């Protein structure tokens, strides 16, 4: 695992730089997920070259020093802490109220799976392309997919969150049998939950190239849209699961498919009003 992170570091680091990180650590290995924990507080025993950033979390916790992964040594150190999963913020530490992307987490409720997520992802793409906006898919490394709409502007969560919610609701309205926009897991059966709520200053999303804790860890990797199309068409998304060796080969070959997420500047269409309810 340490080797994996070292080998994808070139592609991965730009996506972590400057962002407060939440680490999901598995001190007793992925076989015992119940011993895992999310760590926001950057461990006290960190080496002094690990950069941190103080972020106000909430009334109870006050300000917390989050780790930031700026370089290869830090990434390696995190891997050594058994921090298998890295969950960065959608914003950078110096502008916490401004997300650099709009993100949708497509999470299937069984018996729906990755194939159904691909179909919904294509509809997300269609919707945004109507506004002439590009978006980029990645497998979550778990059961689902994520679609990122790069922004890299000055828009704040106050706009992105209701916007994302309205997108999820519209998809649900168009195909209530395939999509849900609400959190409750009970209503997800056989549908894809379009989780818009991660567009929030206090939320984090699994990092691109991060591994996910499974018995055989899988990676959250960027996809070509054509791969999503193919999986949706064939009804088979098996090719979209990447265990460590396949993930390393792929990143070597493809480079950073998610680079445009960092470099594209886009603006959300103005819907004229911002109220949610």
């Amino acid at each position, binding site marked *: 695992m340490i080797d994996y992170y070292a080998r994808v570091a070139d592609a991965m680091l730009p996506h972590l730089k400057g962002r407060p990180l939440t680490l999901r650590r598995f001190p007793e290995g992925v076989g015992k997920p119940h011993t895992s924990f999310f760590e926001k507080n950057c461990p006290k025993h960190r080496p002094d070259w690990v950069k941190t950033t103080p972020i106000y979390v909430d009334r109870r916790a006050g300000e917390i020093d989050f780790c930031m992964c700026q370089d290869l040594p830090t990434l390696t150190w995190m891997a050594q802490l058994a921090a298998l999963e890295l969950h960065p913020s959608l914003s950078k530490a110096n502008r916490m109220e401004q997300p650099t992307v709009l993100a949708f987490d497509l999470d299937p409720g069984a018996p729906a799976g990755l194939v159904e997520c691909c179909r919904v992802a294509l509809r997300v793409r269609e919707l945004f392309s109507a*506004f002439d906006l590009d978006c980029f898919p990645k497998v979550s490394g778990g059961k689902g997919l994520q679609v990122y709409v790069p922004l890299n502007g000055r828009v704040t969560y106050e706009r992105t969150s209701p916007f994302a919610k309205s997108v999820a*609701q519209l998809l649900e*309205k168009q195909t209530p049998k395939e999509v849900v926009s609400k959190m409750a897991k009970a209503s997800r059966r056989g549908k894809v939950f379009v989780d818009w709520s991660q567009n929030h200053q206090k939320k984090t999303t699994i990092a691109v190239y991060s591994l996910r804790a499974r018995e055989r860890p899988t990676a959250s990797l960027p996809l070509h849209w054509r791969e999503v199309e193919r999986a949706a068409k064939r009804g088979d998304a098996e090719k979209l699961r990447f265990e460590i060796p396949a993930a390393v080969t792929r990143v070597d070959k493809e480079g950073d498919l998610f680079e445009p997420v960092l470099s594209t500047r886009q603006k959300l*269409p*103005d819907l004229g*009003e911002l109220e*949610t309810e």
Partner: protein
Amino acid sequence: MARAIWSGSISFGLLNVPVKLYSAVSKQTVRFRELREGDGSRVKHKRVAETDGKEVPYEKIVKGYEYAPDQYVVLGRDELSELEPQRSRAIEIQDFVDLDDIDPIYFEQPYYLGPDKGAARAYALLVQAMKDARKVAIARFVLRNKEHLAAIRPMDDVLTLTTMRFHDEVTSPADLDGEVFEEEKPKKPEKRELEMAKQLIESLTSDFNPDSYRDEYREELLDLLERKAVGKDVVSAPSEEPEPTKAPDLMAALEESLAAVKGEEPATDGKAKAKPKPKAKAKSSPKSKSSNGRKSAAKTRKKAKA
């Protein structure tokens, strides 16, 4: 901000911080007046003596404690007020504890504490110190002639004070036996059942989001009142399943914008045609904030709905 309902000072050790107390809740209960059916005359309550039905003026009322059926110990007004707690102006901090150590069952009523004149600095100091220590202060103070226990903790830049129940006011689970568990105590659950129940809990687990819960009864009640007030017939509609597609305005706006950029009509019900909108394209032209035309279009749509 609301008017202060009390003023005094927090004291512990040598520190003395003059503060004012403000209510932290605004009750949203719908209140009714009593009226006489038919003519709507307001109904008034009078205190009358049971024996002869004559009205008893306020100053002639004394308080009696029924120590046995129909046997009263009578206390006069003066006797009672002598016993009442000393009107102290101090919120005396007794201990600092961890919030997790306090079971929510003890919490009663929330208030805010704000700094009184000239105390802003000392107040800010106390807030910061308590934030850093991540502790809750347990204090005693007298409000409205009653001694209260209270928990004080920082929230953002203010202190909150939550009155608490005294220990002997709270029924402990051990005292419930026999009343709550009428049948014999159930056997230990089977492991499989327990697993299933846990899975169910997990599947319903989400983040606590206070504004996602609303008093639906009150909303329906207010709605009913409003309809009655404007003179419409009130028919109790059978309760429907919540529409899965019920959408706030923003979604409709998105749908219309989308239809507009695609050059289609929105695929909705018999609503009026979507007006063609300024182009919603925005890519790579940071100045394309098409605000005015769009805003007024949104307003028009709202009116049309009303």
